[in-house]
């Protein structure tokens, strides 16, 4: 597989993680709306939302940070580390 494809896949996986995390957050937010509509115990729902939403964002951020951090701090010579 060409390095380009791999690069693409890596970016895609990062994107996928964000999609996952964002959809979880959207889901939680939508549940908050549902809870409001149904007059459910709103404090429980908000409590969970407050913790869970940033948490998922944090996870995605951490991954993204690592990914871009690794990309950024590579030594210039691609061949030395990679393919012998």
């Amino acid at each position, binding site marked *: *597989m060409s*390095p380009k494809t*791999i690069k693409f*896949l*890596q970016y895609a*996986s990062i994107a996928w993680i964000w999609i*996952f*995390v964002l959809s*979880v957050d959207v*889901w*939680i937010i939508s*549940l*908050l709306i*549902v*809870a409001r509509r*149904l007059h*459910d*115990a709103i404090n*429980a*729902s908000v409590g*969970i*939302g407050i913790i*869970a939403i940033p*948490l*998922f964002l*944090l*996870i995605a951020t*951490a*991954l993204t*940070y*690592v*990914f871009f*951090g*690794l*990309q*950024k*701090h*590579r*030594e210039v010579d691609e061949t*030395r*580390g*990679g393919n*012998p």
Partner: protein
Amino acid sequence: MNGNEIAAKDDALFRSIEYTGKNFYYAVGIFVTVIAFAAFLYLGQIISGLGVTGMAQPVSWGFYIVNFVFFIGISHAGTLISAILRLSKAEWRRPITRMAEVITAIVLAIGGLHPILDLGQPGRIWHLATSGRLQSPLLWDVTSITAYFAASTVYLFLPLIPDIAILRDRGTKPRWLYQFLSWGWQGTPKQHKVLNRTINILMIGVIPIAVSVHTVISYIFAMTVQPGWHSTIFGPYFVVGAIFSGIAALLIVMIVFRKVYHLENYLKEIHFSYLSILLLIMSLLWFYFTFCEYLTTHYGNEPDEMRVFFYKFSGDFAPYFWAMILCNFIIPVAILSNKKTRKIKGILFASFTVLIGMWLERLIIVVPSLANPRLGYPTGIYIPSITEWALFAGGIAVFMLGFLLFAKFFPLISVWEIQEGRASSIKEVAHRLRSYLPDELEEDEIKKALH
């Protein structure tokens, strides 16, 4: 430095990846068969309904929920222990953390799917997405398990990156996989810094998540008003039990794979000794919680609570209850508190009894409260069916297979962390020790002493 050179010393750690024996295929074959059988019976359950289980009224929850709690409990082995060990900078953690993290990721996936097995209408699971209600403890579970799963997978993956890079550099096949997963790791100091920083953040973050997971699982029960469930200590009680069973599972896995992959050099008696002392502590702690739980019930003497209490102590569930006490407390304490028996075999035995005991504990929490409803209904009966047993076996098989496959593709012991240990831990420990001690000691002296 070349990857090959780096890893040359630790070739044993790559053996399982680069060499595939017959036994591997046998094992995979067996596990796949078990899983296929379970899947077949599950298909039957989907087609004809939950009637194929042994559940009924009033015992409307059975093995699936028991195993759900049990598996999720085991998943605490990993990330939590590894995070705590990392955080406390315990040097002996280096060969252990990876396995612990793998257990977590796999078992969590299995455990997390158990409630779906339990659903009467699994096809309607999307109702959770469209109209789930956050006020239901089940949703708390869904949220926290998802978070824990995401976090622990990341937490498994990040420390894996340097090892993947080593595999990439060794040219292990499939190359594209390692190229893809190594994220361009080259082991530069700056990359190390980025990685370590993130691991440290996650390490701190994952502990509360892990604690929350088992706490909210206990809330499924504790939030109801049912006798035997409605208890404030359920949260910590479940967490302690989870860590307890998690350590036991970790120990078993370590002992088994040490044997299978000849890792005696890396996993030494001392690792087992340390972990088993942790197990011993958890055993005592578990007993303390159990004692608290039942003493308050007994002293309170509330009739409905007492019905459940006596059902466990002297009724139909007494054999299971006392077996649990035996397995979770008496045997582990007897074995592990004695230096003579605190050997690999003894530890393995104790770990097995703890796993059985903890499974019994989950059974004893779920079933008796349901079997003894209020208002004088007759006591319920619950006899699990073949489907439930098969799915239980299937769950275990999925775990084994998952672990085996992981070992097929990735090193079970963090190679770079071992190397890092070799390179810098003595110095670091010496430095740390010096800072503990009242006298100003020379670093060299300590180093000498350490050797």
